[in-house]
């Protein structure tokens, strides 16, 4: 059961990710990305973190992607006209990605508990929003507050950037 779920989600996620970078129409890219985020949320659920699944779906598939679609519609972006495929750039991109992949997969051999098998029946500590909140407000209260300041800075920055003329 774990295996079937994982493979279905993994194949769906990779297909959605390819679709994001290959679609010519930005709206289609954005919708593929929504599908990818939802699949990733379900993957979080298979890893026993229901809270992060909710956050993922509300913040990413909800708020962030609405923002993306809003901007795409606002700028009225048309499907890109067909340009000659940039083979050189494609080759360089694939080469760099392949080098990264090579390092990544060789590093996987060294993961200490990399061969630990996922099993849903074996009991794991329950992860709920309360525990995460408690940790967030005790051990991680400083990063939490810095994130709050960051959000404030982002809000002010967006207001300044979207003014008609910056004096």
């Amino acid at each position: 059961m774990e295996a079937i779920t994982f493979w279905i989600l993994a194949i769906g996620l990779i297909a959605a990710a390819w679709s994001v970078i290959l679609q010519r129409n930005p709206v289609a890219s954005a919708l593929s990305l929504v599908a990818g985020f939802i699949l990733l949320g379900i993957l979080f659920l298979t890893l026993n973190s229901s809270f992060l699944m909710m956050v993922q779906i509300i913040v990413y598939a909800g708020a962030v992607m609405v923002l993306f679609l809003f901007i795409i519609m606002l700028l009225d972006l048309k499907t890109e006209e067909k340009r000659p495929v940039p083979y050189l750039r494609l080759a360089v991109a694939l080469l760099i990605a392949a080098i990264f992949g090579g390092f990544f997969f060789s590093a996987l051999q060294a993961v200490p508990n990399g061969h630990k098998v996922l099993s849903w029946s074996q009991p794991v500590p329950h992860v709920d929003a309360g525990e995460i909140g408690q940790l967030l407000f005790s051990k991680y209260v400083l990063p939490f507050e810095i994130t709050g300041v960051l959000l404030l800075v982002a809000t002010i920055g967006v207001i300044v950037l979207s003014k008609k003329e910056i004096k």
Partner: protein
Amino acid sequence: MEAFTQITLNHYLALSGILFMIGMIGVMMRRNIIVIYMSLELMLNAANLALVSFSRFSAVPKLDGHIMVFLIITVAAAEVAVGLALIVALYRLKQTTNTGDLTSLKF
């Protein structure tokens, strides 16, 4: 055959690596700045997947990975808001979102 029926930490990490690679290819290959942004989000999410799976498979149950993912999601939301505001400002100035047309910094 066991590699297909037994899902381990390495499977999740490999999936996250593949997602990161796809995002990286998207950032390097695409010319539409909004699609580049979406690829960046894909890379952030790949990192999130790795963090959550490390947290789930750790020998001592710990929630630190979850906190980190939570903070990354918050920062990513702020980053998207600022980035899209920049894109709108850029579009107002140049009427384009194609990075090939934005060459004023080219020497």
